[in-house]
């Protein structure tokens, strides 16, 4: 399985994501500059955190209009796994691949620490390696992670089981403690906490590794079935 880690001007967790996929997970992965990129030969897309385009206008807004997003949308429609973390989540929201939007954290502070999360849905290709209701520890590092959506959207998210991770102690004011959601088809996951920074005990937690392992395992199984 081959991953593309998309690099925008201002991405700064791209190396972490690449390290998680390549060195820890031992999957094929490339850092792919957003311009003139060709995603045809990649099985999965990883959108890393950072401050693409300096968060100009709104976090993720400018990156969401780039040409590479058209390819990512096509991948999403084909059912390929797309993971957006932190700024990657914000880009997926701005691109309309996931519903909702981000507001400034309720206390206006940039927060950078480890947070306990609840695995709310372990039936997605990203989370089959977890128990439902399991508490996992991922770092967060964001100033605009206060997830917002209207009541109808929230009802839809709940009805379709699209809420995948919730905060145990909501740090930023997100609606319904939401830390991560998928699209309806559950192949696009956006989350503010950083699983790629929790892949080795040395980093304080390796709870994030199972997320990447789940993607690879499920990809292999579906690949075997569809061949």
């Amino acid at each position, binding site marked *: 399985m081959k991953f593309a880690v998309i690099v925008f001007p201002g991405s700064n967790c791209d190396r972490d994501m690449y390290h998680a996929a390549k060195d820890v997970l031992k999957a094929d992965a490339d850092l792919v500059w957003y311009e003139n990129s060709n995603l045809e030969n990649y099985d999965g897309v990883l959108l890393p955190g950072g401050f693409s385009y300096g968060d100009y*206008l*709104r976090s993720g*807004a400018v990156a969401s*209009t780039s040409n590479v997003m058209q390819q990512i949308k096509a991948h999403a429609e084909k059912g390929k796994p797309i993971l957006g973390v932190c700024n990657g989540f914000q880009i997926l*929201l*701005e691109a309309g691949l996931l*519903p*909702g*939007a981000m*507001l*400034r*954290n*309720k*206390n*206006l502070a940039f927060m950078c620490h480890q947070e306990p999360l609840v695995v709310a849905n372990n039936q997605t290709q990203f989370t089959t390696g977890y128990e439902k209701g399991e508490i996992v520890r991922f770092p967060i590092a964001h100033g605009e992670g*206060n997830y*917002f*959506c*209207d009541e109808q959207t929230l009802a839809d998210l709940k009805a379709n089981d699209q809420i995948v991770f919730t905060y145990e102690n909501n740090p930023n*004011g997100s609606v319904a403690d939401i830390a991560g959601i998928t699209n309806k088809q559950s192949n696009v996951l956006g989350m503010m906490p950083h699983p790629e920074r929790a892949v080795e005990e040395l980093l304080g937690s390796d709870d994030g590794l199972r997320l990447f392992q789940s993607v690879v395992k499920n990809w292999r199984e579906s690949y075997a079935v569809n061949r």
Partner: protein
Amino acid sequence: MKKVTVHVTLKQGVLDPQGKAIQTSLHSLGFPEVEEARVGKYIELHMEDDADIEARVKAMCDKLLANPVIEDYRFNVEEAVQS
């Protein structure tokens, strides 16, 4: 030439932590009469006139300048003053 002024504001009902902080600061500076402060954005576009200018600017707002999930916008098209 036209000058388009776009105002982007947070929707009513959407929490505005920045506005809240400004309100608190104004209170501590001796302006207790401020009951609410809301922060928005102001964007100025200079562009050639076009019969479709209103529709074009609306599309710009919908696609990029505002996020319809959390923001409202209004804009005004006026003659650009030559400097």
